[in-house]
């Protein structure tokens, strides 16, 4: 369906009004994690391990406690024991127990009357370590003789006899893999590596926690999910969830990294020890980089069989990922996504989740998918070159369609990969002639999308306006899209809807804003809640008119008799119904909670033109195009924003960003100067095309758009650099020295 036809059906959906929180955010009024101050508030600071792997022999806090104004010190001994599984992992990551497992691992925390005093006190806490051998790189960590990070960490999925740091294993596939490779004209196998990167949100983690001796607590925190904070803090500290009230601040970016806890339980534990005074903890940038949750690093073998005409006959992927000193690298997700854009009859996937002496990884935008795409999309490009095939045509030829079984086992519903590839092929950027040292690369990307637990309440105000309470923090304009859908459904003005992100006491449990779900899931629930309110308003009008509720319909924000037989009454507007509601049965609201089904899968395709300086090996991105299926773009400007932001992060991952460790296992690049994310002058304009293949699982056709955009840049840029230079880089990031060395070797 062409986009124009779709748009004509809506009054508000698809328009670009100002976001409701815009004024607060351009005037400095919006309050983020570090912007709250409470009476009697203390400041917390964290003592961190300088070693990658070390036994903690002794912690002596006497000098810190002797300082005037120091109110509490917390170590692992202050936390409950007996936790298991992921709860134990979270607790161990919050504060080290017997061993420090990575450079930056929290060992103790202090609270004092000022930030400077707390930092000084933290420096005075004396920790005696016995340094142990460490391992950083995933290929080293998976060796049978690698230093063992934790005995017994492997789960039941790991068959006996695997190396000690393998903690999770999976394999799956379909078809006859040998026959598939035998049917190919060309079979190639290569190894690819990606390094760990950080989400790089500009707002460091910050919270104010308060906990009394009665176990009742409050927290103000920048998070993607206030209920996750509640659940995890409760587990780590042994609290009752209902007694902890978590209020989300505005959030300065998350990208998956703010879906878990780091120092939040420490502020509560310190507060409890300091007589219930609130404790504020704000991380420094170095703490964010050393001790929050970067993404995994990956080492990946991929083998593909292709016929001369470009048909892919078989694929095999074996991925090893380390996600730090705890289980949880996104190796399964990486494998599920790797071949997802392709209909391939025979597939085999093998995955290893490996421990290393690094921080516990957190989700990062489409976790696992960028790594898998880097390997698979690079190899497909290499094989297209070898066979003299057009990489776009090969992608179209093998693309999955509705009804196809995905590489990971599910069956695709309505998806828009073909439409996305066709729109990409038709874009004028592909016709721009390239000069010397320039090259063009394309790649596809996939993300499942996600629904998750969702609870939304809508209340009609006395004047016919509407308040929507949602549990998904607004990171990139979701208030605007939810207000648009609600107003569209109720038939009122966009400005007459206020969307509030509420605390944990105000709704049922919500999952965070993650998995590209906020506009899909909270939006869908808001629409269903609005429909419930409409039904009640129709009931009220029916009672006024003395007719059956079924004889009333809702048109343009008013109840009216449905057809001539229902009776002759002038429409009764939402404002009129609302103004009388106190005397017609009381407040009118709608509520919906569920795990919504029908989130549609997401595909995108990117095209990048680069120029590589043959003298320095430096890559300049000249042009960038993102094409992606949004199902339906509720607020197109924020959909474009997601595409552009994902592409920019992917460009950084491809060219520049990586966690660099020294031989001592310490992170070397702990400030933005050294962990350099793309700046404005590094990037060109990022062109976008929104494809709309409506998702039948959402009342307005939405499918999540947040994550897919980070996936294609990694291989697209590798493919473009190959086109420009003739050299293939299979290990990210593709820094100038690496490119130069590869060009020299090639000669």
């Amino acid at each position, binding site marked *: 369906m062409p986009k124009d036809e779709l748009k004509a059906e809506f009054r508000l959906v698809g328009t670009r009004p100002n976001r409701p929180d815009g004024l607060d955010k*351009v*005037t400095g009024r919006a309050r983020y994690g570090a912007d709250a101050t409470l009476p009697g508030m203390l400041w917390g600071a964290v003592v961190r391990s300088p070693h990658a792997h070390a036994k903690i022999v002794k912690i002596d806090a006497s000098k810190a406690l002797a300082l005037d104004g120091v109110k509490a010190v917390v170590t692992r001994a202050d936390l409950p024991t007996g936790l298991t599984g992921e709860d134990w992992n979270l607790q161990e990551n919050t504060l080290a127990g017997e061993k420090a497992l990575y450079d930056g691992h929290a060992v103790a925390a202090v609270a004092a009357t000022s930030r400077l005093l707390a930092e000084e006190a933290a420096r005075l806490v004396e920790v005696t370590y016995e340094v142990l051998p460490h391992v950083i790189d995933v290929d080293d960590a998976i060796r049978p003789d690698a230093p063992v990070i934790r005995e017994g960490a492997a789960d039941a999925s790991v068959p006996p006899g695997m190396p000690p740091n393998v903690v999770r294993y999976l394999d799956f596939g379909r078809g006859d893999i040998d026959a598939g490779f035998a049917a190919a004209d060309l079979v190639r196998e290569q190894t690819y590596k990606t390094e760990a990167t950080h989400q790089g949100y*500009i707002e460091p983690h910050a919270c104010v926690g308060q906990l009394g001796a009665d176990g009742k607590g409050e927290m103000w925190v920048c998070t993607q999910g206030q209920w996750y904070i509640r659940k995890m803090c409760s587990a780590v500290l042994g609290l009752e969830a209902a007694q902890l009230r978590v209020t989300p601040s505005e959030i300065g970016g998350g990208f998956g990294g703010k879906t878990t806890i780091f120092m939040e339980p420490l502020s509560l534990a310190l507060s409890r020890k300091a007589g219930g005074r609130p404790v504020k903890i704000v991380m420094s*940038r170095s703490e964010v980089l050393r001790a929050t949750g970067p993404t995994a690093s990956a080492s990946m073998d991929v083998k593909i069989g292709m016929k001369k005409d470009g048909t892919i006959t078989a694929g095999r992927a074996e991925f090893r990922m380390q996600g730090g000193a705890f289980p949880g690298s996104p190796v399964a997700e990486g494998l599920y996504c790797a071949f997802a854009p392709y209909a391939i009859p025979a597939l085999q996937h093998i995955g290893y989740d490996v421990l290393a002496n690094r921080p516990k990884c957190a989700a990062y935008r489409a976790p696992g998918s960028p790594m898998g795409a880097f390997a698979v999309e690079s190899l497909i490009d290499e094989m297209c070159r070898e066979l003299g095939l057009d990489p776009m045509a090969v992608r179209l030829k093998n693309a999955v369609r509705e009804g196809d079984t995905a590489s990971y086992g599910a069956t695709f519903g309505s998806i828009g990969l073909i439409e996305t590839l066709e729109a990409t092929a038709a874009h004028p950027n592909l016709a721009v002639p390239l000069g010397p040292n320039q090259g063009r690369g394309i790649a596809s990307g996939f993300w499942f999308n996600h629904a998750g637990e969702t609870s939304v309440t809508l209340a009609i105000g006395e004047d016919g306006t509407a308040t929507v309470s949602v549990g998904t923090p607004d990171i*990139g304009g979701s208030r605007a899209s939810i207000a648009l859908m609600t107003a569209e459904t109720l038939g009122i003005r966009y400005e007459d809807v206020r969307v509030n992100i509420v605390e944990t006491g105000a709704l049922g449990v919500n999952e965070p804003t993650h998995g590209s779900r906020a506009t899909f899931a909270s939006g869908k629930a808001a629409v269903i809640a609005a429909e419930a309110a409409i039904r009640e308003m129709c009931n009220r009008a029916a009672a006024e008119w003395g007719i059956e509720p079924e004889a009333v319909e809702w048109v343009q924000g008013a109840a009216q008799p449905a057809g001539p037989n229902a009776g002759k009454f002038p429409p009764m507007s939402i404002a009129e119904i609302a103004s009388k509601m106190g005397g017609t049965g009381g407040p009118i609201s709608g509520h919906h909670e569920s795990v919504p089904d029908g989130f549609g899968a997401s595909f995108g395709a990117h095209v990048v033109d680069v120029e590589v300086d043959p003298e320095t090996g430096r890559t300049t991105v000249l042009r960038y195009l993102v094409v992606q299926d949004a199902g339906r773009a509720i607020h197109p*400007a924020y959909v474009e*924003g997601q595409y552009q932001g994902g592409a920019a992060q992917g460009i950084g991952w491809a060219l520049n960003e990586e966690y660099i460790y020294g031989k001592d296992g310490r992170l070397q690049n702990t*400030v933005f100067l050294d962990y350099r994310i793309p700046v*404005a002058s590094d990037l060109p*304009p990022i062109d976008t095309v929104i494809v709309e293949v409506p998702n039948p699982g959402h009342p307005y056709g939405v499918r999540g758009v947040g994550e897919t955009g980070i996936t294609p840049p990694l291989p697209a840029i590798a493919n473009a650099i190959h086109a420009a230079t003739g050299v293939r880089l299979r290990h990210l990031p593709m820094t100038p020295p690496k490119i130069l060395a590869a060009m020299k070797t090639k000669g």
Partner: protein
Amino acid sequence: MSRIHVTTTVNGDTVEFLADPRETLLDCLRDHVGLTGSKEGCGTGDCGACSVRLDGTLVCSCLVLGVEAQGRTVETIEGMATGGELHPLQRKFIEHAALQCGFCTPGILVAAKALLEKNANPTDTEIRYWLAGNLCRCTGYDKIIRAVQDAAAEMRGAA
């Protein structure tokens, strides 16, 4: 460490505070003056989220000591709208969806205003280099550049 009494002008108002000599201007604005619009993204001069004007000069307030503000003039994001009227940059940022999380926005607005005062008609490249010290992780900068250009055009038209 004993605190030092500082008198300064912030957004046109005289303010006084007691600063620990180790505290940055950013700390003082946020923790002593109660102006939390300027943000700390790094504390090392790399992200620009803390951008303010000090006697008209664009600075990273995380690299200036609070006591250095003595007798000087500080302008922050909170002073950018005048008399309830948004500055054209602020308006255009909202209109162009040039912010997602909004955390970088105060610093970028303060820096962009300084640019347009120096150069009323910048090229895209000039804007990109001027703002190279202001990190944004959400937007990929595209809409930010468009918003600055649109505001500049409007301001030229109005002038």
